[in-house]
């Protein structure tokens, strides 16, 4: 390949990165002094706490609630649970069960700080070893089976029934899918707990649960051996349980998580402080476990005009990148979002698409760009839609994208039928193979429309970031700078789950992750 394919103004690039760094620095300071109920539940999950109490409430939720009720949450659950477990000489699971049954932890004796630390260290070691083991296992399989050529063909399944999802996923893999994403049930992201067990009912998707992760992982690994190529498994983290889902995904060997620093705020009306804090912990886990994150800039273009607001995508990618850097993520795990959402009836719309796609590619040369298909302008004319998908697939190989969410011809109609997915694969298989090496054949005119347009979007993004840096990211979101959606810092769901860490707050797993990833001292 002839790289770079288009020339970006290097001063602008530098300025963009600097601004994004500054913007996220400001937020990171706030993140570091806060924790959330979800972060605390994550610790418990990593420590192996399982099961539900009455009415299907996960034990981890019950424990955090109890500690909160006792007004002890500001110290972090770890301190109190480990203390209780040491005193009671019970393992963490039993201790938690006891806490849920109203054990009065506040009245227990307190072990020495040294003893506590020692115990926490050993528990942390165990947790991180287990995660490492899981990701090594996956790496192993990955090496044996080999990586398919990019763009990877990413397909979604969404029947609501995990067992039915498996059938659909297997069929997709047989026909060429490289990545399977199980779409979550509608509004699961607004649940402040992670459901338990295998599930067979959902709305427009299947619940993300640890057991569902396991079932699908196993099915895909088996199928992968049959087709002799590694199959990646995706689920969604963004939402009220961002770090918990990341922990479960890490434990079950998932490969990719939808994980955006702002998606929940904008599209799910989750409180911004909550999301910022949660995304940090979730990304530390992803970074450590080799899970690729996928950000959600594509969503902006479903509410805002894809040409007019192209720069908001770029600005958000830059911010997501810097947040990820702060969580110790290497660039190859940052799957930044982008989408093919320009009105198909616009003259030269395709030239814009190419320019925008190349911008994403060149601005983040080591990131695996997640490229989303046309959705907004898909209509009930499935044929027209299929033609749009064809051009989308072509632009993807032409511009060298990495993760290709295959478009579905019935996007405007229903969640994909088996035959819809098959046709999506037939389209991508045809275009990708038939145009395999097009990217190394085609050059774009120096100072042509495409190159100019890419730089123009970058310049607009820099302008926007200047403003955001000046007023701060939170204020910018309040102004509705992203996706034309305004959210207030005191509004949204889940703010009551955020708390300021006390001076005796401890979270040994996070500290260890930060150390190993080299992000803190």
């Amino acid at each position, binding site marked *: 390949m002839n790289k770079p394919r288009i020339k970006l103004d290097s001063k602008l690039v530098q300025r963009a990165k600097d601004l994004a760094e500054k913007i996220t620095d400001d937020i990171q300071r706030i993140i570091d002094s806060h924790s959330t109920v979800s972060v605390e539940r994550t610790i418990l999950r990593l420590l192996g706490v399982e099961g539900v109490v009455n009415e299907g409430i996960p034990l981890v939720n019950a424990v955090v609630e109890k500690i909160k009720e006792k007004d002890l949450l500001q110290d972090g659950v770890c301190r109190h649970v480990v203390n209780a477990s040491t005193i009671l000489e019970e393992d963490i699971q039993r201790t938690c069960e006891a806490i849920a049954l109203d054990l009065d932890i506040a009245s227990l004796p307190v072990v020495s700080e040294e003893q506590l630390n020692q115990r926490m260290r050993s528990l942390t070691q165990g947790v991180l070893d287990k995660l490492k083991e899981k990701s090594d296992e996956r790496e192993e399989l990955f090496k044996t089976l080999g990586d398919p050529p990019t763009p990877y063909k990413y397909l979604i399944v969404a029947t609501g029934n995990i067992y039915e999802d498996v059938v659909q996923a297997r069929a997709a893999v047989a026909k060429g899918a490289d990545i399977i994403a199980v779409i979550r049930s509608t509004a699961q992201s607004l649940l402040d707990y992670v459901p338990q067990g295998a599930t067979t009912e959902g709305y427009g998707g299947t619940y993300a649960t640890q057991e569902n992760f396991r079932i699908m992982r196993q099915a895909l690994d088996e199928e992968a051996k049959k087709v002799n190529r590694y199959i990646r498994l995706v689920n969604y983290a963004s939402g009220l349980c961002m770090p918990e889902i990341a922990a479960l995904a890490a434990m079950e060997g998932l490969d990719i998580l939808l994980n955006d620093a702002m998606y929940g705020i904008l599209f799910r009306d989750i409180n911004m402080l909550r999301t910022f804090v949660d995304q940090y912990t979730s990304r530390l886990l992803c970074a450590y476990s080799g899970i690729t994150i996928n950000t959600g800039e594509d969503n902006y273009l479903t509410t805002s005009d894809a040409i007019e607001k192209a720069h908001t995508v770029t600005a958000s990618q830059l911010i997501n990148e810097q947040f990820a850097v702060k969580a110790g993520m290497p660039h190859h795990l940052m799957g930044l979002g982008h989408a093919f959402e320009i009105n198909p009836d616009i003259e030269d719309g395709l030239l814009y698409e190419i320019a925008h796609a190349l911008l994403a590619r060149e601005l983040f040369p080591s990131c695996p760009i997640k490229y989303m298909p046309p959705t907004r302008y898909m209509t009930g004319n499935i044929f027209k839609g299929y033609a749009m998908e064809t051009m989308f697939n072509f632009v993807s190989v032409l511009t060298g994208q990495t993760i290709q969410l295959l478009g579905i011809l019935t996007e405007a109609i229903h969640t994909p039928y088996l*035959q819809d997915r098959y046709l999506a694969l037939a389209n991508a298989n045809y275009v990708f193979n038939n145009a395999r090496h097009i990217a190394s054949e085609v050059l774009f005119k120096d100072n042509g429309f495409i190159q100019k347009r890419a730089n123009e979007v970058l310049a607009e993004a820099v302008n926007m970031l200047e403003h955001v840096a000046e007023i701060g990211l939170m204020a910018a979101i309040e102004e509705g700078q992203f996706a034309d959606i305004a959210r207030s810092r005191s509004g949204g769901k889940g703010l009551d789950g955020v708390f300021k860490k006390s001076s005796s707050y401890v979270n040994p797993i996070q500290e260890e992750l930060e150390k190993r990833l080299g992000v803190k001292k």
Partner: protein
Amino acid sequence: MSNSRLIRTYGDQINDGAVQLSFTLPLESGALAKEAAKRFCEKLGFHDVLICTMENIGEGFSFFVVYAKTPFSVDISDIKVITPKYKKLPREELDELVKTRFRRKIVVIGATIGTDAHTVGLDSILNMKGFHGDYGLERYQAFEVHNLGSQVAPIDLVKKILQIKPDAVLVSQVVTQRNAHIKNLTEFMDLLHAEGIRENIVVVVGGPRITHELALEMGYDAGFGAGTVPSDVANFIVQELLKKSPTV
């Protein structure tokens, strides 16, 4: 003596009855599956059934594309289409009408209810910008618009109505999986009745799968489907309010 007007699908000759189908059967591709596909089409009444492709699509399923001819016609003489009734006045005229007849702005509340997070449809009716070059309700002098956005629980919307006392309520429903929209819409209408505030207001619903028929069935004043432009809704609301209380 009959006035029936029979029409039939058309390929390249009037009344040839041509139709294209595609579907999946839970059978591996082969002579059996092909015959099954053919018989299925015959059950639908088709003749000259041409199985154009049969392809294995994994897990024991096959995909078919078929062209066939139907003998059935539809009599269109007895079709009576029901659509929301209103005259389409230009924005200025409508503003003027409201000014003279109501002497105040018409207050509207809009929301996407349930867990539905789709706002683009409702926004394109309410926002200044509008849809397809047709300005949204905010642009009219006639309206005072409260857009509550998405994911509004029916009960919360009722609370807002009690507080703001709007003339019209605009509900959007995009997600229809497992009939989530029916559930939400029924619940909301029940609550309105329970609070005794149904009669005083115009209540309309919109969304890509909403039909006027369905809306009426559920007790709404009108339903607006795909391709609705704001001026449709603006005119309907004003004229419906005038019908409800012609004395204003």
